């Protein structure tokens, strides 16, 4: 059934329908394969379909910090909230920004919503605590050896990381600390490099009094906890803490989350055991020496003069400056790891730099091996204490799994009914042509489904009820494109053409209509997606996706399929059931004459 004549007339559009069909079939197979390969065969369901709790948080500028609502701060806040929510032991919670100033927190079913809300709502606590003991992050069967004052740089850090890895690997065996005892996991070994605190811009004269003050504080420190920020634990406490430290497992996410929760719950005056962020080190920490609120400013700067690379500069308010000078003076006299102080956020050690001298003047810098990102992160944490912004819970939705399932079922039934009605209508009206429409709808459905499934892990797309609605409404939009094309073909047949030319001539015009109207539809979806928040966005996303797929399907599937089918006798001869019977379409012989005359004037398609 080769068609040289047709090929000559519009070579581009119809030349190789088979190839185009093969292309889209390959795409479908690839997407389906990808779906199975990714291990997800159903789309991720949103809270309203799967059950769970969802909060919307609205960012507010904190007093005295106008214009704090920006992308960086929102992302920092998302990070912090995520950590806190996951700290509840929730496995599949998700936290994401929405719009400019909203954060959505979705917590799956089976979680205590109240507890979650408290976690989300509270302001995190930031504090500087002196390090009393530090040891490798895995569960220790017996007391860890005291860490040695290791001051080497690069190599040690690497070695340490290796040890860390090894420890993780050996976790099951349990006896890991002994062999790894010698390279002490101090701050110098943190992946952030080797943060050391230097006296910065601090006048030596200023520093000296600070040092002496701390020295005196140290003298009576053992008795008076209030005055001395670094008391050595009382023997009983020490044993208890050591036990706790041994039990602590920082090498796993769950273990860390647990540890953080416990540590965050402790009072500032308590000594705590805590994990470092990277999980390689666990530490016993003294009471809070300087509160996070005493930090007035922190920023990440790139040091070009002394070649220290990225560093974090800190400024304290007057109380903070005094306290900081005191504690650093004290720490500087000690051996590692006790010359370190830990920056603790929500019970987790985000950084534990060591101190070489007392730092007065209310300014300090932490340097060593930062990347731009890690420096800004630390600076963010320091300058905003905790959340860079305060948040209000503006919506809270709890859906039980039962209702979620019911809504999902209702959505699916509604979709099935809608689809059935459309099919009945199409078959009744278009007969054989309806097969083309149905096949196209099926292709569209497969593409939509697989893409939705794949978007779950890829960009966190979750199918919610509005999205289901969008997909159902899209059945109509997709089918409309076929109708536009079919009506065009029928118009051409009414002009007296046979099917094959009609299919080709009808296409360019139908194509334009489809493109223009789909563009408008897509524009609506895009504007909605960008401008709105919440549920509307989910709907807009589905609508936009299906509109795009509609274009793809019509171009790559429906049209080539029509071209192929136009060569079949069933359709080409205008079988009464083909939906293309010229007699039924009202073609009358005299029209052929008029057609010939009009042909030269007919618009030539591109």
């Amino acid at each position, binding site marked *: 059934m080769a068609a040289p004549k047709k090929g000559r007339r519009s070579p581009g559009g119809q030349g190789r329908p088979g190839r185009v069909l093969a292309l889209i079939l390959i795409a479908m197979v690839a997407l389906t394969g990808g779906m199975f390969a990714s291990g997800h065969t159903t789309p991720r369901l949103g809270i309203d379909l799967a059950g769970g709790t969802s909060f919307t948080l609205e960012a507010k500028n904190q007093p005295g910090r106008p214009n704090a609502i920006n992308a960086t701060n929102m992302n920092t806040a998302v990070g912090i909230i995520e950590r806190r929510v996951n700290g509840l032991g929730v496995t599949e919670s998700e936290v994401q920004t929405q719009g400019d100033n909203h954060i959505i927190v979705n917590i799956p*079913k089976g979680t205590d919503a109240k507890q979650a809300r408290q976690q989300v709502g509270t302001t995190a606590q930031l504090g500087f605590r002196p390090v009393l003991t530090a040891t490798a992050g895995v569960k220790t069967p017996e007391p860890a050896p005291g860490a040695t004052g290791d001051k080497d740089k690069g190599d040690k850090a690497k070695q340490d990381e290796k040890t860390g890895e090894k420890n993780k690997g050996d976790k099951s065996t349990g006896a890991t600390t002994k062999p790894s005892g010698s390279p002490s996991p101090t701050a110098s070994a943190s992946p952030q490099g080797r943060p050391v605190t230097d006296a910065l811009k601090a006048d030596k004269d200023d520093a000296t009094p600070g040092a002496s003050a701390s020295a005196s504080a140290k003298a009576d420190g053992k008795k008076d906890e209030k005055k001395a920020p670094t008391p050595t634990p009382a023997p009983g406490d020490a044993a208890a803490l050591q036990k706790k430290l041994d039990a602590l497992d920082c090498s796993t996410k769950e273990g860390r989350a647990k540890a953080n929760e416990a540590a965050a719950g402790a009072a500032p005056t308590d000594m705590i055991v805590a994990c470092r962020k990277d999980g390689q080190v666990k530490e016993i920490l003294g009471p809070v020496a300087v509160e996070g609120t005493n930090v007035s400013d922190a920023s990440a700067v790139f040091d070009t003069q002394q070649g220290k690379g990225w560093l974090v500069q800190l400024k304290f308010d007057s109380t903070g400056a005094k306290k900081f000078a005191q504690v650093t003076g004290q720490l500087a006299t000690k051996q590692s790891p006790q010359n370190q102080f830990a920056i603790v956020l929500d019970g987790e050690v985000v950084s534990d730099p060591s101190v070489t001298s007392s730092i007065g003047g209310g300014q300090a810098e932490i340097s060593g091996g930062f990347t731009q990102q890690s420096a800004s992160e630390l600076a963010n944490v320091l300058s905003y204490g905790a959340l860079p912004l305060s948040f209000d819970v503006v919506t809270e939705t709890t859906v039980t799994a039962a209702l979620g399932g019911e809504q999902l079922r209702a959505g699916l039934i509604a979709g099935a009914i809608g689809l059935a009605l459309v099919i009945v209508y199409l078959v009744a009206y278009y007969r054989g042509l309806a097969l083309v429409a149905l096949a196209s709808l099926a292709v569209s459905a497969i593409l939509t489904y697989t893409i939705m499934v794949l978007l779950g892990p890829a960009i966190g797309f979750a199918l919610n009820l509005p999205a289901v609605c969008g997909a159902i409404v899209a059945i109509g939009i997709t089918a409309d494109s076929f109708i536009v094309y079919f009506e065009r073909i029928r118009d051409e047949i009414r002009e007296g053409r046979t099917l094959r030319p009609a299919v080709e001539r009808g296409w360019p015009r139908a194509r334009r209509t489809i493109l223009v109207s*789909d563009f408008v539809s897509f524009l*609506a979806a895009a504007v909605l997606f960008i401008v*709105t928040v919440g549920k*509307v966005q989910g709907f807009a996303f589905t609508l936009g996706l299906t509109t795009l797929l509609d274009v793809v399907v019509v171009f790559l599937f429906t049209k080539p399929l029509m071209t192929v089918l136009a060569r079949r006798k069933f359709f080409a001869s205008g079988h009464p059931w083909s939906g293309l019977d010229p007699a039924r379409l009202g073609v009358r012989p005299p029209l052929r004459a008029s057609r010939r005359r009009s042909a030269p004037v007919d618009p030539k398609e591109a």
Partner: protein
Amino acid sequence: MSRLGNLGARLYRGEVGYDFVGKRKIWYGISILITITAIVGLAVRGLNMGIEFSGGAVFNSPPTSVSATQAQQTAEDASGHPAVVQKLGNKTLRVQVSELTTEQSRKTQEALAKKLAVPVDKINTDIVGPSWGDQIANKAWTGLAVFMILVVIYLAIAFEWRMAVAALIALIHDLTITVGVYALVGFEVTPGTVIGLLTILGYSLYDTVVVFDGLKESAKDITKQTRFTYSEIANRSLNGTLVRSINTTVVALLPVAGLLFIGGGFLGAGMLNDISLALFVGLAAGAYSSIFIATPLVADLKERDPQMKALAKRVRARRAADAAKDGSGDAAGSADAAGEDEDEDVQDAAAGVVGQRGQGAGRSRGRGGRPSGKRR
């Protein structure tokens, strides 16, 4: 079915047709009437804004034996605000309290859970802070404005400004009617409604665009002929694409009807119902407006164009001439046209002379339009 198919063919050839453009004043009148009703309804009754906009909470309990009155008492005691409680068919309770702060809502939730003796997380809850609804509404308005501007620009480029204006008017018409229906019937406006309403944007225009596309095509060489005015061609093209318009609308409405049926019939209330209700009203209004409002508007605007005025004048002149010729019995003068055509022209002209600019145009066009090829 075959009769319907033939109808499509006859519509296509212009053998039958409805004079949409000619009778436009009737339809404008009807639309204005509906729109005014909608606006009055909106002004008098206002919209029944759901808790998502006023702030408050909705609780859906699991099936329970606690009565609605008891639950209402509990909710009102805990919240200090009047509560609306419904006992739904499946023995669940739906408790709605508006104008609450999130804190009050939580208290109410806990009190209800206690009363019903179920854990808090077994109660479906929707708590919305008062500020959230404003934002949703504001964003929806912003989206609407941005979309309208973009779409007018796009249509002005893809078609022409007159069509863009007409499409915009039709769109506003659809939205007003939908909102009016909500005000008059007293349906609750929820985010689902807003979603539905915003979707109408795209869909109403989709429909209009399909019609305009046909119009643009038929009017391509309009100045090269003197047989038809723009209005007549517009009407013809409208009738030609009528089947297509009806089919696309029906097919778009069917899934929405499915949603509405399931949403309203099975779930009682909820997102599905809200979206589909707004969509259903809006889509129906959209289909109506793209045929009865948008295209006649374009024709109206077009007829003000000097070029089209000149064309209308030429058409009138030619028809007058044809009529004169016909009157003098000089039937042979039309060597350039087939006899059949001539016949029709005569009738066209007769009608055209009487009221070609007004009501009469449609009928004349109806007959004259058939040999579409010849016209060009």
